[in-house]
């Protein structure tokens, strides 16, 4: 028992392991884990005992309505709905925070400035600089940096619960407010698609400017392919060039959408849908873990991927051969 507890202690807190006697500290960690597990399983069993194992299927609740866009302000083409609001928030946040930090740069940076400088260096050196030559990187860095920051902010505010769900309303102290829900502008296919279109047009134009229209189309064929095979390869490469548009937009959209759906289902929608109370309690830890995973990894990773692929495509379009 004590030896086992000591190994847990060594794994959990290596810094404190030497000074304190392993038994008591390891024991407390173990106890905490056991108490947590006990609360979780005990709650599940208690809820099964109270509300029964199987519930009735809830026909009224439709999970896809979480992603439905209700028009709030009717302005024809410029109507405002949830996605537009998230877009505006993300764009404002991106520009305001970055301009604010850039205005008050100091010789001795504080924590925020250090973090922004790390992001700046990542965008400049590894995303733009690593995939294009010097001149191209200098010219396209602002575009790629903006894409990265905009997608990052857009993904991150998607994980803040905002009062946007006008389908279900809360009544608090006489006021009627929309209930809080998670939504992200990037969880709607049209926004990643527009971003991907901008990228698609710009790298193709850059390629045509560097090599001429015919030269650019010819450069799609890899070196060393001749004869009738070249036509076949050309068609393949042309299609794969078009597919970049699809893959670039669907990658971002589906990642964020699936993340939101998983959080939604794990954090209660499954229980509401199937009408069994214990399921909600049972899946809640998973929901919290998924939330952490999405905020900590997926949001930043997808922004990074989008920007990196943009840089790779731009670099590849002007490269001599590929």
């Amino acid at each position, binding site marked *: 028992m004590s030896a086992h507890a000591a190994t847990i202690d060594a794994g959990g807190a290596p810094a404190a392991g030497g000074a304190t006697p392993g038994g008591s500290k390891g024991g407390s960690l173990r106890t905490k884990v056991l108490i947590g597990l006990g609360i979780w399983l005990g709650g599940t069993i208690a809820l099964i005992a109270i509300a029964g194992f199987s519930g009735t299927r809830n026909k009224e609740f439709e999970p*896809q309505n979480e992603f439905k866009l209700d028009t709030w302000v009717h302005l024809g083409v410029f109507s405002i709905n949830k996605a537009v609001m998230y877009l505006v928030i993300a764009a404002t946040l991106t520009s305001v925070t970055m301009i604010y930090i850039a205005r008050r740069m100091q010789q001795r940076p504080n924590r925020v400035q250090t973090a922004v400088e790390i992001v700046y260096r990542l965008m400049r050196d*590894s995303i733009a600089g690593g995939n294009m030559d010097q001149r191209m990187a200098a010219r396209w860095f602002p575009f790629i940096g903006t894409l990265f920051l905009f997608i990052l902010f857009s993904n991150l505010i998607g994980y803040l619960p905002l009062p946007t769900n006008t389908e279900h309303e809360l009544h608090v102290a006489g006021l009627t407010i929309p209930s809080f829900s998670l939504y992200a502008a990037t969880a709607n296919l049209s926004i990643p698609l527009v971003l991907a279109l901008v990228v698609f047009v710009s790298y193709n134009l850059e390629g045509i400017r560097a090599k001429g229209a015919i030269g650019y189309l010819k450069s799609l064929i890899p070196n060393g392919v001749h004869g009738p095979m070249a036509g076949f390869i050309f068609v393949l490469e042309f299609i794969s060039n078009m597919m970049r548009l699809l*893959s670039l937009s*669907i*990658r971002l959209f*589906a*990642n964020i959408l*699936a993340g939101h759906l998983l959080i939604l289902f794990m954090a209660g929608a499954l229980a509401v849908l199937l009408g069994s109370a214990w399921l909600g309690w049972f899946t809640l830890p998973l929901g919290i873990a998924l939330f952490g995973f999405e905020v900590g990894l997926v949001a930043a*990773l*997808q922004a*990074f*991927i989008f920007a*990196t692929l943009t840089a790779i495509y731009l670099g590849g379009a002007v490269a001599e051969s590929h």
Partner: protein
Amino acid sequence: MLTALITVFAVTEEVAKAGKSIGLGVGGGLGAVGAGVGIGIIFGKVIEAITRQPEMRDEITSIQWLGFALTEACFFYGLVAGLLAAFIV
């Protein structure tokens, strides 16, 4: 005659529903299988590469995340196709 027709229509609707469910299951499930294998291979190779050349760690890490996201996206292509089959087609 009429009852037979109604039965046939009812059955076809049930079959269509079953097909949609199968589409969603296969799209999500097989997508997850492929992406799971791919992500496993990527991280295995990364561990191998870093143990061989620890000094390349930073470079390998950035390539690793690129590969991870590209592979993970394949799962979502399957899932989106499944969702299309189940809810839209």
